C-alpha cells in the first residue's frame, strides 16, 4: 500500500495561482501530494480513489480568524434567534421571526425539563428584527410562572428575565438600579441591560461564560460548529490559557474526532506585559498540528452598537458617546512595544477609528524602536478605519481582519443611528484593504454573529444589510477575493499560510466540500452554497 488517496471532485478551487482549478487531489500522511487532473494526481503511484465528493466542489478548508470558543458551549442553552442556525449536532433550528415563535420554542423546551428548579436559559434573541411589543417578563411568565427563565440577547449585553428570575435577584417594584428597565408603575419589566444589572440573575442561574468556554463539551461543540460551516482552522480570540485550560485543550484537540485546528489567543491584558510575553513564548512550543499557541489578543475600545467604541470627530451620529478604553492609550504603546520586541504576534481589537488610530500609533512607535519584518500583527474588526488609516496599515505591514458580518446584522442601525450614512457606507472597507495592499481576512466574531465563512464572504461581496440596503457599493469585493479572504487571507494573519489556506503540493490536506461552485453561481447567492463536509489532514471529519 502506498498510503496515497485521491479525492476527485466536480471542481477543485485551489486558491493556488499556479493551478487555480483542478479535479483531483492526491494526499498522503495528511499532506497534499499532487493537484491536477486524474493523470497528474496519479503520478505519485498507486492510489486509492475516494469518489465520495465526485459531484461536489472542493475548496481549501475555511479559516475563521476571529471567533470565540463560547460559541460551542452556548448551545447548552436554547437558541432563540431570528435566523436559521445549525446546532453542533448538525440539526438545524428554524428561525424564530416573531415573539410568538420564540415563546413557542421556549415553551416546548421548558416542557422537556423535569426538575422544576432548573432554570430555562435562552440565547441569541434579537429584538431589532422583531415587530410588535418588545419581549418582557409577562411574555416569559406565560411559559412558566414558577421556573426562573432568562433569555440572553444576541449581543450578550442584554437579557430578559421572567418574574421568578427577577425575584431571585430581588428585583421588585421600587428597585432603582441602572440597567433594570421599569414598567410605568415602577416594577421591573424584565429587561436587564449590561453585565452589572445582569450579574445577580446570571450568578443565581449559574450562567458563567468563562465556565462555558472551559467546559470540555463546549470545546468539542465548538469544533462541530466550525466543521459544519466548512471551517478547518478556527481561532478562539481571547483565552485565559492557564495550565489547566491548556492541558485540557491539548487533550481534546488530540482526539482523532476533533475536527479542526484550534488557535487560541492569550488575553494580553490579564497581567503585566512582560509576564504575558513570557507566557506566550512558553506556550508557543507546546503547539501541535491541531493546537496552535503563541498569539496574543489585546483589547482597546468597546463596540459601535453599544456606543462604547472610540470614535474620532464627529463622534456618534445619534446617541451618547460612551467610548471606553480597556487599556489606556499610553499603556497600549508600552505593551505593544514590549510584546513586539519579544517577538510576539499580536491581534488587536479596534472598532472605532479613534481606537484604530491609537493602535496604528502604537505600532509605528514599536516598529521604529524594534524594526522587525513579517510580524503579521493584525488589527481585528477595524470597522471604521478610513483610507488614510489603511495606507498606514500597509506601510506598517499590518493585516486587517474586518468584521464583514456587521454590515448585514448591524448595518441599518449604524446607518440610521450610531454613525450615520457617510461612515456606515465605508465601514468594514474590504476594497480599501485590497486596493492599498493590506492583507485581508473577514470574520464572524461568533457567537456575536453566527460562524459561517461563506456568509461572511457574501457580506463582503454584497454589503447588504438586513433591510436590503447596500452599504457603500464601492467597497464590495469580488467573490474570488472574498473566498481568498476566508482561506489564505485568514491563514496569513495566523502565520499559517505556508501550511493551510490553499490546495497545493506540500500543504496540509484540509478541505471544505461544497454542494455547488461559489465562483460560478450568482454572487447574491454565495451565502446559500451548501457546506457538505470537511476534510482535515486528508481525513473526512464526520
Amino acid at each position, binding site marked *: 500500500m502506498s498510503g496515497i488517496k485521491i479525492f476527485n471532485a466536480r471542481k477543485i478551487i485551489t486558491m493556488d495561482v499556479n493551478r487555480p482549478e483542478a479535479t483531483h487531489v492526491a494526499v498522503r500522511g495528511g499532506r497534499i501530494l499532487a493537484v491536477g487532473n486524474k493523470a497528474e494526481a496519479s503520478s505519485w503511484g498507486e492510489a486509492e480513489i475516494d469518489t465520495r465528493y465526485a459531484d461536489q466542489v472542493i475548496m481549501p478548508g475555511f479559516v475563521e480568524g476571529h471567533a470565540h470558543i463560547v460559541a460551542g458551549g452556548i448551545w447548552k442553552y436554547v437558541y432563540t434567534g431570528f435566523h436559521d442556525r445549525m446546532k453542533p449536532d448538525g440539526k438545524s433550528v428554524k428561525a424564530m421571526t416573531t415573539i410568538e415563535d420564540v415563546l413557542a420554542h421556549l415553551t416546548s423546551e421548558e416542557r422537556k425539563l423535569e426538575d422544576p428548579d432548573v432554570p430555562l436559559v435562552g440565547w441569541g434573541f434579537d429584538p431589532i428584527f422583531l415587530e410588535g411589543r418588545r419581549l418582557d417578563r409577562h411574555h416569559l411568565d406565560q411559559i412558566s410562572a414558577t421556573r426562573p427563565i432568562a433569555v440572553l440577547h444576541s449581543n450578550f449585553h442584554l437579557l430578559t428575565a421572567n418574574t421568578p428570575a427577577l425575584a431571585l*435577584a430581588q428585583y421588585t417594584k421600587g428597585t432603582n438600579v441602572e440597567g433594570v428597565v421599569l414598567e410605568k408603575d415602577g416594577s421591573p419589566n424584565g429587561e436587564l441591560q449590561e453585565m452589572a444589572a445582569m450579574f445577580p440573575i446570571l*450568578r443565581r442561574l449559574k450562567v458563567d461564560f468563562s465556565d462555558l468556554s472551559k467546559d470540555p463539551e463546549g470545546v468539542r461543540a465548538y469544533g462541530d460548529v466550525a466543521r459544519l460551516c466548512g471551517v478547518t482552522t478556527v481561532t478562539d480570540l481571547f483565552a485565559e490559557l492557564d495550565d489547566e485550560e491548556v492541558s485540557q485543550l491539548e487533550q481534546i484537540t488530540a482526539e482523532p474526532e476533533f475536527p479542526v485546528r484550534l488557535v487560541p489567543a492569550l488575553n494580553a491584558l*490579564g497581567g503585566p506585559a512582560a509576564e504575558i510575553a513570557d507566557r506566550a513564548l512558553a506556550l508557543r512550543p507546546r503547539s501541535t498540528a491541531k493546537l496552535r499557541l503563541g498569539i496574543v489578543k489585546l483589547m482597546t475600545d468597546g463596540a459601535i452598537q453599544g456606543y462604547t467604541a472610540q470614535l474620532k470627530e464627529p463622534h456618534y451620529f445619534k446617541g451618547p458617546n460612551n467610548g471606553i478604553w480597556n487599556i489606556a492609550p499610553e499603556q497600549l504603546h508600552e505593551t505593544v512595544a514590549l510584546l513586539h520586541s519579544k517577538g510576539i504576534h499580536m491581534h488587536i481589537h479596534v472598532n472605532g477609528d479613534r481606537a484604530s488610530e491609537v493602535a496604528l500609533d502604537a505600532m509605528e512607535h514599536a516598529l521604529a524602536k524594534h524594526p522587525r519584518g513579517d510580524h503579521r500583527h493584525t488589527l481585528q474588526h477595524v470597522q471604521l478605519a478610513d483610507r488614510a488609516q489603511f495606507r498606514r496599515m500597509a506601510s506598517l505591514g499590518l493585516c486587517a481582519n474586518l468584521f464583514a458580518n456587521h454590515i448585514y446584522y448591524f448595518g441599518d442601525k449604524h446607518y440610521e443611528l450610531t454613525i450615520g450614512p457617510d461612515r456606515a457606507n465605508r465601514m468594514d472597507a474590504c476594497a480599501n484593504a485590497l486596493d492599498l495592499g493590506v492583507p485581508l481576512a473577514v470574520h464572524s466574531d461568533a457567537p456575536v454573529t453566527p460562524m459561517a465563512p461563506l456568509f461572511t464572504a457574501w457580506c463582503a461581496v454584497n454589503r447588504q444589510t438586513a433591510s436590503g440596503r447596500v452599504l457603500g457599493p464601492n467597497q464590495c469585493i469580488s467573490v474570488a477575493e472574498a473566498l481568498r479572504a476566508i482561506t489564505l487571507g485568514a491563514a496569513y494573519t495566523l502565520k499559517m499560510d505556508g501550511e493551510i489556506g490553499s490546495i497545493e503540493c506540500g500543504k496540509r490536506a484540509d478541505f471544505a466540500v461544497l454542494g455547488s461552485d461559489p465562483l460560478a453561481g450568482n454572487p447574491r447567492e454565495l451565502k446559500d452554497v451548501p457546506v457538505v463536509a470537511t476534510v482535515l489532514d486528508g481525513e473526512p471529519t464526520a
Partner: protein
Amino acid sequence: MSDATLPPLPLTVIAGYLGSGKTTLINKLLADAGGRRIMVLVNDFGELAIDAELIAARGGDTISLSNGCVCCAIGGDLFQAFAKALDASPRPDHLVIEASGVAEPDRIANFARAEPELRLDLIVTLVDALNARTQADDPLIGRTLHQQFQSAGLLLITKDQLAGQEQATGLASWLSTLCPETPILRGEMDLEILLGPETNPPPSVDQKHPHDHDHSHEDMYERWSFSAPLAPDVEALRVVLENLPTGILRLKGVANSTPEPVEFHTAGRHINITPAPGVTTHGLRVVAIGLAGNLPTDELAARFETLATSA
C-alpha cells in the same frame, strides 16, 4: 459557597488614572488593615509592596496575608471577580477593587448597586495633582477622567506635596466646581475614611448630653457621635442623610426603626440605608468623621436631635 443570609458585603472602588497613586493607597490599606479582613482585587501584583513577613500563603492569582486580608489579581473580568468575592469563605468584611486607570468606576460600582449581597460603600477617585488637569483635557482620555471625577463619592488629591500648595489648591477649587457635592481630601486618606468607621457607635451613657466629640483620632480628623432612645422613621432618616451639611466625610449609624431596623452609611456624597435584621439595641446611634475643624458638629447635633424627638 455564598451565603445570602450574611449582611451585604461593602464595596469600595479605588479609581483614578495611571500614576494617581492607587497602588500606594492599597499598600497602606493592606499594611494597616487593623483587624478587618479585607479582600483587595487588583489589576496586577507587580507594584504591590506587600511585606514578605505579612504573606501567609501565595498561590496563582491570590496572596493571603497573616492579618486576614486577601489580595487577588483580576484579569479585567468583573463577573469572575465579584463571583469570587461573594463565594469566598469566610466572606471578607470589606471588598476593595482597584479600578484600572481607564475604568469608569460606575461600571464597577453598578454591580454592587444591583447585587443584593453587595453594598456600594464608596467610590474614591484619586486625582494626581501634577498631571490631572492636563490629562482631563486630553482628547483620548479626558472624557474618562471626567467620568471618574463625576462618579466619585470622595475625591483624593494625591502628590500634593510634589505639586506644591498653589497647584494643589488650584486643582481643588477646579474640582469643586466640577463636583460641587463631593468632599475633596488631600494627600492621605485614613482607613476609617476609606472603609468607614470600624465599629458601631457606642450608646451614650449620659442622656443629657447625647452627643460627644473628640479630636484624639490622630490630629487630622474629628469625630462626633450621638445616640437617642427612640429610632426615627426610615423616610425621615433618609431626608436628613440626603441633606447633610458639608464637611462630613463619613457617617455611620444604626436605627431600630419600624418596620425594620436599619444600618446607614454615608461616604462623601454616597448614601446607603440597608436593613439590619440583627440589630437589637434600642433607638438611634450615629457617628460622623470629618477633617479637624471642618466637622459641622453643631449642625449635626441640631438635625439629629430634631430627628430623634420627632420619632
